[in-house]
């Protein structure tokens, strides 16, 4: 019985860590620009697809993965430079709609540049499940969990210990004041999109050995990541991680103990309840100005 529970928890944590990585990307861009970037899922897709196609040309994974992350970062920067920045004066809603358009464009391009097939990626360190107290875990899940931890730590250091990070935080708190003390808000926006794209690509590469990758994989992962970011509190780094893990765990537990047909209903139901009681999310700012 406890082996069963452990299996559900492990499944939930793995999926949750994936959601958390995507949610972090949402939060970074939201902080820098108040924009909810609906192309975040597409960064995940490009990371996975680019790695798969680079490996297809014969490159080893340690080379293909960084290249794919760089490529995705460039896409993210291009999105910020040529779409979001140009509409600088527009209301936030317009910017959000621009990102929706960008996500459709990127998905279409991906289906042309690559194809509409589903691609596997080899696991980083083997396929042999690790047995833990009657439950099993894939080595790749450890990679996902481990890298998520490292990323969270690195982001914390970046935002709290470096000038660039602090400038970004300052921009998120008060754009005008940040500008007045000499923060280049445009640079912050660029860095935020680049960073989010890199994070998304990293998530896409990490999960592809478990979930495969295809031109439309970003839609659902993006949506779940967004839900996780909202649940944890949009704009909060720890909130994104907590929200992601919680969403994954709720899904796995309700699939295991209640009904797999209703697991999404249960997960989103709990999410709505939390938002009604705490509109800023679990770890969001008290003053929920814009959600």
């Amino acid at each position: 019985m406890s082996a069963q529970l452990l299996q559900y928890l492990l499944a939930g944590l793995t999926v949750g860590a994936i959601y958390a990585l995507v949610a972090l990307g949402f939060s970074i861009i939201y902080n820098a620009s108040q924009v909810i970037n609906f192309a975040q899922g597409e960064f995940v897709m490009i990371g996975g697809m680019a790695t798969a196609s680079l490996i297809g040309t014969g490159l080893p994974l340690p080379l293909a993965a960084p290249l794919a992350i760089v490529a995705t970062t460039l896409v993210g920067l291009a999105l910020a430079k040529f779409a979001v920045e140009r509409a600088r004066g527009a209301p936030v809603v317009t910017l959000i709609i621009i990102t929706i358009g960008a996500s459709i464009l990127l998905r279409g391009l991906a289906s042309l540049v690559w194809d509409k097939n589903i691609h596997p990626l080899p696991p980083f360190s083997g396929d042999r499940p690790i047995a833990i107290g009657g439950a099993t875990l894939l080595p790749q899940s450890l990679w996902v969990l481990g890298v998520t931890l490292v990323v969270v730590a690195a982001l914390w250091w970046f935002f709290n210990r470096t000038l660039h990070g602090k400038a970004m935080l300052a921009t998120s708190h008060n754009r005008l004041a940040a500008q007045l003390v000499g923060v280049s808000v445009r640079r912050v926006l660029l860095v935020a999109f680049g960073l989010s794209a890199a994070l998304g690509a990293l998530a896409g590469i990490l999960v592809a050995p478990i979930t495969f990758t295809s031109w439309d994989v970003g839609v659902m992962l993006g949506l779940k990541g967004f839900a996780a970011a909202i649940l944890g509190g949009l704009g909060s780094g720890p909130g994104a991680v907590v929200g992601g893990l919680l969403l994954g765990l709720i899904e796995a537990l309700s699939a295991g103990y209640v009904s797999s047909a209703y697991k999404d209903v249960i997960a989103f139901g709990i999410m709505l309840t939390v938002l009604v009681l705490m509109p800023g999310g679990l770890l969001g700012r008290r003053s929920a100005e814009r959600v």
Partner: protein
Amino acid sequence: MNLRSCLAVLGRFVSIAALGVATHALAQEPIKIGAFLSVTGPAAFLGDPEQKTLELYVEKINAAGGVLGRKLKLVSYDSAGDADKARTFVKRLIEEDKVDAIVGGSTTGETMAVIPLVEQAQLPFISLAGAVVIVEPVKKWVFKTPATDRMACEKIFQDMNGRKISKIGLISGSGAFDKSMRAQCMAVAPKYGIEIVGDETYGAQDTDMTAQLTKMRQNAQIQAVLNAGFGAGPAIVTKNFRQIGMTVPLYQSHGVASKEFIKLAGEAANGVRLPAAALLVAKALPFNDPQKKVVMAYEHDYESRYHQDVSTFGGHAYDGLFLLVDAMKKAHSADKAKVRDALESIHGWMGVDGEFNLSPQDHMGLDLSAFRMLEIKNGDWTLVK
């Protein structure tokens, strides 16, 4: 030979010549075959090979002299998986293009949308979509070539009977294909003495199914697991199944009967059984198999022309076209009513999908022999005895 008989002979010659001229004029008039296929859009993986197959064989038939001395003319539209577009195009096929028969309807939705039009216009229509509802109840002018998901269920249950499996767990996705197959399997299970003691589902884009499978593993009654679905889902199910160390037999549906599934699931795919069309294992079929010649020829024609792997969906179009041609030859005309009657009388005709035995009660005409039971061994298909 007197003058009168001379004239009579001459008259006969003239009339024969006149007849020749008449049939010659008729020969100029091509037989029009209409088609509406999802060549683009979400169901492009169905429509694309279907369109290519029709083009390829209309060309081949014409090069060989056509049908009944007349050329075939293919009038094809891309309905992009949209039932509304399908209706518009079929209307155009009937009213403007005045086609003699229609082959098409890559998806069940498109097919069902045009049935009223076809029935009203009274012309033979051969659908390339899967669901049972197309031919059950029988509609006078509607036929179809692909085997149904119900038959896939029956084929799997037959195999389970042979392995003395009677209690199974069913796991299916949330897509239309998955849902339809799940319903059909549940409906025919009692006929084979199979009891479904676990019923789990997963979302179309879910990334992990270990929770659902763990639940099944805890259920000691379950002797085998059947997964109805296609796309990435079944490959993840297969990997998770091995990951949590389940040892009961795993069955997949004909929805994953492609090399892609083996590529995605990798080693975990070994030992999986599934029903599939003979086309997939054309090379592995024994030489005395009556279907071998047809599927090998189709595979060769298609792959040498388009340089891409043949798919079972294109095979449906092959059968649709040649059933029509066969019926026209049988009826000695392209007359709509006569062709329809001839279609119903086709018996023992071997196509890519299997042996067709059509009748007024059965407008599909395939039986369970259309499916072959396969087991994946060492990353390749093998026929189960």
